[in-house]
């Protein structure tokens, strides 16, 4: 720790020295010297521990403007506790100032290739940063169900700073920041966060356009993200500069909404996919977690915020569950020989036990031959009879769907002729499978075709097996 302290002091000293030199050029525009940056260097010589799988309940991050009185109290308590660490234990990496210094360090003290703005690092790094910040806040108030709120400035009636951050508008409020250029009654201009801006960002056709590339930024990083920083911070406030932005608690609500934009962009279209380039997926950063453990996390580990990081935006019907699944275990069938699905007694026991304890069961079909004459959604049933009836989800013998989307009709012949399908097996569909007297002939039928004209197709696949995961109780 002494090494950490000395490195930080060294950088602080450097920052102080250069700030005096820089004061002369733009009086009236320059940021104040009181806003000295104290960037946080990497803290220790020992390597970080890898990020651990998150077992928290999946819960929504909610608009700051919709928080209840008790939720606002909890939010303020969390930041109060985080700020208190700055004085009670300045070396605690969970303290507010040191949290802010992480952003400072990654935005201005690292080499150009490591800076987390102006490239595809922007969305991924900030998601990871907010994630650990959120966990620390939760730990400090003893509630790991705590989730950061987001400032939904894209909603026209929410263009003012969320009231929790300005009420009271003084130092007694741990969400307040004295350097803001934006007053509680100011509104963000439509030009910076209005429909034009949001539509432009969310309609970006590729990740390169939306989230940037290894060397270039995407559209929303500049507007609305950058514009809101400038609007809140004004000429000289903390929010206006990379080095100091993390010192304003509204930074985290602002970035939560920026993170939501990424989530919304992903959901907007099946073509809105994240890069698969290993150079993107393997980007790795280090953060302190809520237990002061130095952790490493990769970009690949933050792409699915719901499953991996345990938060969503908006309500979730799964939020009451705590699905901390144990390892998936493969349950084989004799499909390769019989080309039918048959449950052995051992498989029945294993699946039944998992479902009985809120575990998860999946049916995997690999190498399924698919019709290639058109784009369509096919339903998979446990028998030709059930497919003929096509009662749909929850109906007799229904197992799941297999969509076939062709790039274009002209190119359909060049398509892969097989697909892999994975279906969740519910207690209800397991009942169907259990009721079968003999081997099941899985059958496809095109969705939306009227009774009498349906043409069930027997499933031909290379293999079929189950995977089963118990849940940690």
């Amino acid at each position, binding site marked *: 720790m002494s090494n950490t302290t000395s490195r930080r002091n060294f950088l602080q000293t450097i920052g102080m020295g250069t700030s005096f030199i*820089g004061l002369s050029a*733009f009086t009236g525009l320059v*940021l104040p010297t009181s806003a000295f*940056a104290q960037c946080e260097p990497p803290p220790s010589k020992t390597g970080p521990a890898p990020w651990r799988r998150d077992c928290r309940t999946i819960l929504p991050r909610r608009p700051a403007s919709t928080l209840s009185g008790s939720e606002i109290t909890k939010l303020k308590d969390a930041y109060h506790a985080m700020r208190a660490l700055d004085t009670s234990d300045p070396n605690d990496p969970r303290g507010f100032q040191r949290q802010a210094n992480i952003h400072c360090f990654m935005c201005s003290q690292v080499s150009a290739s490591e800076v987390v703005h102006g490239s595809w690092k922007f969305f991924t790094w900030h998601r990871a940063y907010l994630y650990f910040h959120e966990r620390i806040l939760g730990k400090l108030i003893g509630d790991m169900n705590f989730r950061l709120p987001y400032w939904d400035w894209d909603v026209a009636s929410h263009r003012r700073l969320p009231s929790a951050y300005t009420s009271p508008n003084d130092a007694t409020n741990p969400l307040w920041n004295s350097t803001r250029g934006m007053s509680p009654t100011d509104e963000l201009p439509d030009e910076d966060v209005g429909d034009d*801006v949001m539509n432009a960002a969310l309609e970006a*056709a590729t990740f390169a356009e939306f989230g940037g590339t290894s060397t270039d*930024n995407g559209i929303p990083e500049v*507007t609305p993200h950058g514009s809101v920083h400038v609007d809140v911070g004004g000429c000289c406030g903390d929010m206006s500069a990379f080095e100091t932005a993390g010192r304003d608690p509204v930074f985290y609500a602002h970035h939560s909404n920026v993170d939501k934009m990424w989530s919304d962009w992903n959901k907007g*279209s099946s*073509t809105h996919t994240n890069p698969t380039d290993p150079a993107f997926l393997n980007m790795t950063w280090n953060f302190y977690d809520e237990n002061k453990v130095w952790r490493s996390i990769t970009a690949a580990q933050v792409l699915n915020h719901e499953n991996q990081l345990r938060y969503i935006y908006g309500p979730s019907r799964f939020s009451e569950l705590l699905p901390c699944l144990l390892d998936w275990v493969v349950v084989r069938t004799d499909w390769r020989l019989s080309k039918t699905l048959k449950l052995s007694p051992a498989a029945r026991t294993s699946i039944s036990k998992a479902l009985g304890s809120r575990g998860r069961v999946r049916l995997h079909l690999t190498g399924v031959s698919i019709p290639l004459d058109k784009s369509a959604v096919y339903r998979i049933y446990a028998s030709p009879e059930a497919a003929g009836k096509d009662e749909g989800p929850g109906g007799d013998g229904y197992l799941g769907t297999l969509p076939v989307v062709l790039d274009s009709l002209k190119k359909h012949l060049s398509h892969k002729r097989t697909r892999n399908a994975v279906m969740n097996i519910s207690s209800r569909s397991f009942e169907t499978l259990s009721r079968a007297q003999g081997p099941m002939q899985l059958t496809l039928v095109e969705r939306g075709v009227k009774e009498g004209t349906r043409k069930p197709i027997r499933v031909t696949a290379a293999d079929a097996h189950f995977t089963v995961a118990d849940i940690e109780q």
Partner: protein
Amino acid sequence: MVRLVLLFLLLNATVFAGGQTSDHDRRFAVSLPQQWQQSKLLIVVEGLQAPGNVAFKLRVSALDDDAKEVSLGAVGVEAIGPNKSAPRTLKNLRLDVTRSLNRFLENKSTPAKIELLIRPVDSRNNPLEDLEWSVKDVRLEIQPKPVTP
């Protein structure tokens, strides 16, 4: 995937010095491509140079026949930090002006060129007259509009 490949049409911008605006504003004339109505329209500000300790917005306006400014949008430029007064260069800042430019051109006979005014402003959109800034180029890029599934 072919549809997703971006086919940028880069249009040369011509810099006009001076004019009715402040010395610290920059004016550019950009040509409108024929297919502009079927495309996404992006203003690309290339090589913006400004001190690293100043936060500002770069406001882009179109000038109509009466030299009246019509805002097309703004890009936010955060400062790096209070002691980073050295000039820094931002490679490309992109601003989607599809809707705002379409509105600007609504009920107008399409001009061959559009005159753009670029101006640094503070958070309340007041001009930053003292800011030393430069820009290498401003251009209009068009991209195919995404097809809604």
